[in-house]
């Protein structure tokens, strides 16, 4: 039951993950992902009927902070790592036409 990953799937995952692959990389990715999914399919051998999915391993609940302002203006630090900035803001390629 080998998983065959199509060109469309790799293209689609590229859109989701925002990755642009060369043709050679795409072929490699198809093969790698197919093999990994074959391997993951092993989980299908286990009967998990009625088992609650465990997203958190400990029953830690209700962790809150109080509604008090603790942070001040740290704009300079924030922008220090920006590839491009202007007027105290991050510069990005145009987002709407």
């Amino acid at each position, binding site marked *: 039951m080998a998983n065959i990953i199509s060109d469309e799937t790799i293209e689609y995952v590229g859109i989701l993950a925002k990755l642009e692959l060369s043709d050679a990389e795409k072929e490699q990715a198809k093969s790698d992902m197919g093999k990994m999914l074959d391997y993951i399919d092993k989980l299908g051998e286990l009967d998990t009927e009625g088992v609650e999915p465990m997203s958190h391993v400990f029953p830690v609940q209700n962790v809150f*902070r*109080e509604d008090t*302002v603790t942070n001040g*203006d*740290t*704009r300079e630090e*924030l922008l220090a790592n920006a590839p491009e900035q*202007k007027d*105290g803001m991050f510069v990005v390629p145009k987002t709407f036409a």
Partner: protein
Amino acid sequence: MAKEYETVIGLEVHVELATKTKIFCGCSTAFGAEPNTQTCPVCTGMPGSLPVLNRQVLEYAISVGLATNCDITRYAKFDRKNYFYPDNPQNYQISQLYLPICKNGGVEIETEAGGVKTVGIHEIHMEEDAGKLIHDEWEDCSLVDYNRSGVPLIEIVSEPDMRSAEEVIAYLEKLRLIIQYLGASDCKLQEGSMRADVNLSVREAGATEFGTRTEMKNLNSFKAISRAIAGETERQIDLIESGEKVVQETRRWDDAKGESYAMRSKEDAQDYRYFPDPDLVPIAVSDEMIAQIKARQPEFRTEKMKRYKEEFGIPDYDIEIITASKHMADIFEAATAICGQPKKVSNWLMVETLRLMKEKEVDVEDLRFSPENLAKLIALTDAKAINSSVAKEVFEVMFEENVDPEKYVEEKGLKTVNDEGALRKTVEEVIAANPQSVEDYHNGKEKAIGFLVGQTMKAMKGKADPALVNRMLKELL
């Protein structure tokens, strides 16, 4: 014969909660600060930063859920909604999909026909707001400000229970009233603290299946919502009539042009890959927590109406209007508490305030005059320091700029002249200058005195007590 169509509408309403800080960090939510000055590693997606839930956000969400008859989810979680966009610094939004905090509620609205209808609430969930994108015309790029990133929102998702723009507006007004009474948000559409996305489909009258729906975004006023509903209904009917299909998509409303356009892009897969956020722990809502929040719920409208009737004895119609807005009710109560004259306060709200709101197209939420200044204005008229026409003039300035009436009257010299000597001199001059009217009066034409009062007031530039002028005229004649 043309077919009859029915419009089916559901709403997704986003409400910015009135917390002091953001949902997952201690940054201020104050409106209007310099770009990026209210940010920290958490709300700007810095590597290694982690979110911690603001307790007040949960309490507001539960209080809105209780007030809209929802079931409160006893074991709730946050999920990540993954999509790339520059206003979303982590490129995922922390929201709730699988276990939202409230479910299965509803509110009653009054229909045009005068009946009552329930609009179901499918769920209410908590999430974080995105930053703001500003288009830079000079450089042909966009700029990102993360001050709004992480401001807490609740999204109230209705059932597709509405059938007209009027019902939609009635539903929104009802939600707004409830949320404002709770103090959970100021719900200003213009400023974006309340935003509604309209899910709309049409179907032939009598059909039982829903048609394909579209989602309309960017609706900034009740008027825009009405226009968008009319426009989208028409567009979908046209498509169906011409044998085309409605495409399920998100559209952006351009209110200036009165039309919408699809927001599709090849790079936008609309596959959000929701999964439970491992950085946040589940929320277990106890009976005690719900009881505490219930105990803290404020007085709602029906309770307030009853109390106004008993406590203040103002007319039912006034109560109806005043309590229809939490903001107006707050002004009423605060001004009454200062001056102790509920009827006079109500009168100012019912007459001059409503007139100016209509004339100047001001929303009740944007009323700017303070209850303190209204009370002062009432005190000035009570003391006969100004007459009623001057008071109206002053109120109009207060309505625009919230000026202090005492100072304003002083500065502009609007105080009534109570110096009887000066007044008598003017009255004498008016009598001398209008012999015809004096004669008419003496011949029994009572009305003539009105003309003479008017002339005196004019000569006094309005700064006299008309009753006093009247008395003095009669005396001298």
